[in-house]
C-alpha cells in the first residue's frame, strides 16, 4: 500500500474517517494510525477498547506513516476534519469530523458496504491468529497438492519457519495423515466455503498454491475483479474472520482439519503480553505491586501498565484491592457525566479522591466488559 490510485483512495478515505469518528474530541488522529498498524502498546489497546475500534486493529499492518500524514492533510484540506482543542485546561489537540466528513463515511457504506465488511472483524482477538490460520492453510494445501501428485520438490510459499514446522509435524501424525489421505481437507473446505457467493469462494481459492496453480496476490485479484485493492483486502479479512469463527464454533467434530489449523498452541495466557502474563501469575500468588517491582526489577509504571492490561483482558481478576467498587463507580459516573475518557479531565474533577492508576483501571475494566458484551453470544 504505497501510492494510491483515486479508486483506492475512494475506499480508504471513508474507511479511515469511520475510525476517526469514534476518536473525535477525545484523542489525536495519530492514535488511529497506531490502531491500524496494530501497535501493541497499552495505550493503543486501551483506545481500541474504549472507542470500540476492534475491527480497525491491525487492519493494515504495513501502512506507511507518510501515507497516513497525507490522509490527515487531505481530510483537513477537504473540510472533512477540523483541528480542535480537547478542553480548557488541556493543551493537547484533538479533532472533529465535520458533517461533510460524516457524509463521506455514509457514502463509503453505501457504495462499498464498508460497515458490513468491518462488522465481524476483531483485530485484538483474531489479529495474528487469522494470519497464522491463513498461512497454515495455504502451506497445507500446497503440500497436499504436491504430495498427491508425488512431487516432493516444491518451493514452500510460506517461508515462516514455525509454520513450516507446524505443517510438517501435523503431517506425521497418523490420524491427521489418515484424514488427509481421505480428502478430508477438500471436504471441509468445500463445506465451509459453500454458503458464500462465488466471488467470495474465488477470492480465497485463487490465492492458494499447489501443483496445478501458483496462487494469485490480492493485487492480481483486484485487477481481475476490477475492485480497488483495499476493498479486496478488507473482504479477505472479513472472509477469514467468518471462516475462523465458523470453524471454532462448529468445533473439532465437524472440522477436524480446519480446527487444527485454527488452534493456538501456547503455554502462556494468549490474552496478555508475555511480561504482563508473568505479573498476573505473581498477582494471583498474592504479591503486591511493590513486591512484583522488586522481584521482577521493574519500574512502578511498568507494573501499573500490566495491571491495566490485565483489567482489560481478564474479567475474572479480582480488582477490588486496587480499586474499591465505590471508587470505580465514582470514576465511571464522572467519566459519563463529563462525556470523556481523558484521564487528565477526570483526575482534575475528582482530585485526591482517586489515583491515576485507579482511573485507568476503572476505564480499562469497563472497556473490557463492554467488549465482552458486544462480542456476546453471536461471537
Amino acid at each position, binding site marked *: 500500500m*504505497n*501510492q494510491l*490510485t483515486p479508486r483506492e483512495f475512494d475506499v480508504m478515505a471513508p474507511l479511515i474517517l469511520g475510525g476517526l469518528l469514534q476518536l473525535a474530541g477525545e484523542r489525536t488522529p495519530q492514535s488511529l494510525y497506531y490502531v491500524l498498524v496494530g501497535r501493541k502498546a497499552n495505550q493503543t489497546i486501551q483506545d481500541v477498547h474504549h472507542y470500540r475500534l476492534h475491527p480497525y486493529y491491525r487492519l493494515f499492518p*504495513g501502512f506507511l506513516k507518510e501515507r497516513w500524514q497525507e490522509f490527515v492533510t487531505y481530510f483537513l484540506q477537504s473540510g472533512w476534519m477540523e483541528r480542535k482543542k480537547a478542553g480548557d485546561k488541556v493543551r493537547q489537540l484533538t479533532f472533529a469530523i465535520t458533517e461533510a466528513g460524516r457524509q463521506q463515511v455514509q457514502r463509503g457504506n453505501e457504495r462499498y458496504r464498508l460497515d458490513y465488511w468491518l462488522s465481524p472483524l476483531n483485530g485484538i482477538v483474531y489479529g495474528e491468529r487469522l494470519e497464522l490460520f491463513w*498461512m497454515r492453510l*495455504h502451506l497445507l*494445501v500446497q*503440500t*497436499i*497438492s*504436491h*504430495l*498427491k*501428485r*508425488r512431487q*516432493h*520438490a*516444491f*518451493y*514452500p*510459499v*510460506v*517461508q*515462516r519457519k514455525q509454520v*513450516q514446522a507446524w*505443517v*510438517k509435524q501435523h*503431517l506425521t501424525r497418523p490420524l491427521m*495423515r489418515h484424514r*488427509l*489421505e481421505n*480428502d478430508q*481437507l*477438500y471436504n471441509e*473446505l*468445500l463445506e465451509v*466455503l*459453500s454458503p458464500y457467493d*462465488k*466471488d467470495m*469462494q*474465488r477470492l480465497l*481459492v485463487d490465492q*492458494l*498454491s*499447489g*501443483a*496445478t*496453480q*501458483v*496462487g*494469485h*496476490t490480492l*493485487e*492480481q485479484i483486484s*485487477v*481481475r475483479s476490477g475492485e480497488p485493492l483495499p476493498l479486496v483486502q478488507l473482504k479477505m479479512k472479513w472472509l477469514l474472520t467468518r471462516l475462523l469463527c465458523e470453524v471454532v464454533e462448529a468445533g473439532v467434530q465437524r472440522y477436524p482439519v480446519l480446527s487444527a489449523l485454527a488452534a493456538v498452541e501456547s503455554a502462556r495466557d494468549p490474552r496478555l503480553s508475555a511480561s504482563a502474563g508473568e505479573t498476573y501469575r505473581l498477582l494471583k500468588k498474592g504479591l503486591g505491586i511493590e513486591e512484583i517491582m522488586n522481584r521482577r526489577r521493574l519500574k512502578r509504571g511498568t507494573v501499573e501498565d500490566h495491571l491495566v492490561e490485565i483489567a482489560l483482558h481478564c474479567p475474572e481478576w479480582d480488582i477490588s484491592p486496587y480499586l474499591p467498587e465505590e471508587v470505580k463507580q465514582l470514576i465511571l459516573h464522572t467519566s459519563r457525566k463529563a462525556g470523556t475518557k481523558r484521564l487528565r479531565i477526570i483526575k482534575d474533577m475528582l482530585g485526591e479522591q482517586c489515583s491515576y492508576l485507579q482511573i485507568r483501571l476503572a476505564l480499562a475494566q469497563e472497556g473490557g466488559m463492554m467488549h465482552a458484551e458486544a462480542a456476546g453470544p453471536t461471537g
Partner: protein
Amino acid sequence: MQKLRGQLDEALVRYFGYPSFRPGQRELIEKLLQGKNVLGLLATGGGKSLIYQLPSLILPFLTLVVTPLISLMVDQVQKLRQQGRRDVAYVNSALNPEEVQQLLREIRSGRYKLLYVSPEKLKHPAVVAALRQRRVSLFAIDEAHCISQWGHDFRTDYLRLPSVVEAVGSPPVLALTATATAEVVEEICRLFHIHRDDLVKQSLNRPNIAYDIQKVDSEQEKREWLLHALAHLGGSGIVYCSTREAVEQVVRLCREAGIDNVHGYHGGMEAMERVLIQEQFLRNQLRLIVATNAFGMGVDKPDIRFVLHYHYPASLEAYVQEVGRIGRDGLPGYAGLVYWPGDTAIHQGLLRAESLSRADVEKFLQVVTGTASRTISFAQLHTELGIGETQMRALFFYAEQAGMVADVVLTKDGYVYHLGTGEQHIAAHRIAEELARVRQAKLEKLQAMEHWLEQTGCLRRAIAAYFGEQADGLTYDMYCCSHCGLDRSYYGRQTGAAARTMSDKEWDLEQVLGRLLGRRSGLESGGSL
C-alpha cells in the same frame, strides 16, 4: 590426477545430471583439490555453486560457503534438501539463539558437509570455534568483491575473512565473483594469498545478449519507449527501476496501457507475496516483473528473454549482473536501457541519503560511548541518528577499527559491544575520512556507468574493457549492440502464451478445489516438505 578426473566426471553426472563441465569449473575444482587458493571470475549464471557443491561431496570435512545473500543460502539449501542431501545447513542472523546453539552442536558432531554462513556470523567466537573443531576442508567465499573497499558492494564484515580462514586452519580458499575490475581482482588475490596463475577467468562476454541504449530527453519519452518495447518484445522479462515508488508507477502505467500480465516486486512487499510472484514468473504464469534490484538474486529461470532498465543502475557491475539473467538457456535475448540523463538526480540523491557527515559520526560516537548498557538497538540508533542498518554496520566497523569500540556483536535486537581506548576526536576524524573514501569510490562507479552510456563505441567492447578483458574478437550470436546496429524486431518474434483467466461463470469451487487437492488419488507415504 587421472583418477581424480574420473571421479569428478562421475560425480557430475550422478549428483548434478550434467554431461560435462562448463568453462572454468573443472580447472577451479582441480586446483582446489590440489590444495591451492583460487579465484574464479565467473559470469552470472556461469555455474558458480557447482564449484563448491561438488567438492563438498568428495572432501572429508566441512565445506564452508560465506555469502551475504540470505535468500540465496535459504534457496540453495532448500533445493539441495529437495534433491535428497541431508548434510547441508545454513547459519545467519535470522536464526534465534537456540537454533544457532543447536546448529553448532550438530556442526561439531559432524552432521554437515556443506554449510552456508553469513559473514557477520563469523564474528562470533563460538561459531569459529565450532568450525575449527569440525575441521574445514574448503573455504568458499561468494561475492568475493565485497571485500574490496573500492568495489561497488563493499561489506565491512568481509574484511575479517582472511583472519577467519587462518583461525579455522587455513584450508584452501575459493573466492568467487561475477563482477570485479582489475584493481578489485588484485585486492582479492592479495588478501587471500591467491597466486596469479590460480586466477580462473570465464569471459564475461555473453554472445547471446544484444545491448541497446536509447537516449531520451524526458520522463514522458521514457514511458513511451517502455510501453513500445513491452508491446513488441516476446517471452518473459524484467523491468528494473531504481526506487520502490518507480516500480509502482511503472506497474500502473503498464496496466493502464492494457498490459495485465505484470506484477511489481520490491523489498517493501510481504514475504508471501514475493514468493508467489517469483513462482508465477518461474512457471510462466506471469510474463513481466517490474522490480528494484531486490529481484533476481538466486532466481534460476533459463528463458528470460529480455531485461529492460527504466533507470540505469548505479554501476556497470550491477548492470552486468542484472542483464546477465537474460537467456541462460543460450537462446538470443535483449537488454534494453532507456537513458535519460536527468535520472542522475536519483543516484545523487541516494548517495546523499546514505552519506554521513562528520557531525553524524561525532553524534554516533557520543551515543555509543554514552550508553551505559553497551547495547544499542537498531530502533534507538535510527531515532537518534536517522540512519539505516547498512550505515550502522559501517559506523560500527570503522569505530572498531579506530579503537573506539571492541568485540562488537550483532544480535537480533541490535549491537552489543565493549568500549575501546581510542580518543574520540581522532577517531571521528579517521572514520569520517574512511566514509568519504567509500563514498568517493561509489561516485566513481556511477561516473563509469554514465560514461559507458554516453560513449559512442561498441557497448560490448566497452563493458569488456571496463572489466579488464581483451576487447578484441568478442563474438556475438545475432546482433551486437545498438551502436554496432541491431534489428529490434528480431526480439519480438516468439510470444509467450498469455495466461488465460477463467470467467466467473466457468469457475466452480468443487472443480478447482478437487483439482488443486488431487482428490482421491491417494497421498503418497513418506512425503515430506
